[in-house]
């Protein structure tokens, strides 16, 4: 399975440490909150709310270089908009990979 990485952030920052730090800070601050919101919305079974959260999270997934992860999120978001939870397990694996990764950066 692919691994999260900082390739996009490094390219964007182009050596500017402040930009890199700001982007990482946003991910480290917002992602855990979005994951919590995701878990809550899964419990409540609010499909449109889950899809909204995934829509937000998937930008971070692509920023962290997870091309397959982004596709998984896309498929799950699409399924949710049709009231279908298919793709949940795969998406949650992506969330776990990011959770572990952001502790290292």
């Amino acid at each position, binding site marked *: 399975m692919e691994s999260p990485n900082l390739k996009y952030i490094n390219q964007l920052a182009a050596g500017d440490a402040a*930009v890199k730090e700001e*982007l990482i800070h*946003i991910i480290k601050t*917002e992602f855990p909150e979005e994951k919590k919101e995701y878990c809550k919305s899964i419990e409540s079974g609010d499909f449109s709310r889950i899809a909204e959260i995934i829509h937000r999270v*998937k930008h971070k997934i692509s920023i962290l270089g997870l091309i397959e992860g982004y596709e998984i999120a*896309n498929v799950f978001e699409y399924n949710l908009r049709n009231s279908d939870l298919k793709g949940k397990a795969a998406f949650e694996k992506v969330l776990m990979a990011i959770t572990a990764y952001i502790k290292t950066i």
Partner: protein
Amino acid sequence: MKCIIIDDEKIARVILQTRCDEIDSLEVLEDFPNAIEAIKYLNRNRVDLIFLDIHMPKFNGLDFIRSLKNPPKIILITSNPNFAIEAFEYDFIVDYLLKPVQSDRFKKAIEKAKRKNLTFISSEPNSSVKEIENDFYVSIDRRLIKIDLPSIYLIEAKGDYIKIKTENKDYIVHSTLKKIEEKLPDSLFLKIHRSFIINIKKIIDIEDNSVLIKKDVIPVSRSKRPELMKRLDLL
């Protein structure tokens, strides 16, 4: 160009700001986490370009576009090109960028925005400057497909649809000939019949009442023939 950024995601705003910083001719005046704040700002300030996220909660990018009275150029930012389809009905939409925004693609979009400004400036009579957009977008099955304008050789009306024939592929689009005619540059395209627009540079042969383009023989209306002949003189 003076610009503003509208996106509910903070990280998206930072990324766009960083991309804008790479281009000297761009000045970011403000960024906004929602469209309502941006509207208030635009009531008091003039900008040349807006980077607009389409998918925002409550008041989304499309709502914002519909609310504008004198819209500047807009570049759409989206995770999903399907959300941008409706917005492409508007002439002031320059391009759309997928998240996360890539440097090369960003620069191309800015060049397009500059060209659009140039076209506007040079639209006075006798101006020798003429910029032609090299591509445009059509929506097919909820997807935006980019078509290279010079590659189009024929557009045919088919009821509620039009068939766009290019060097490589044909496209069926839900639109009218009149609508697409307005978007095409006069220097390349001419409506020669109520059901046909042709790329005049692709004409192989002309007979009295028809032209040969690729393998298609297209009728020329009697009323359109003088205009066609006049255009060919210019080639």
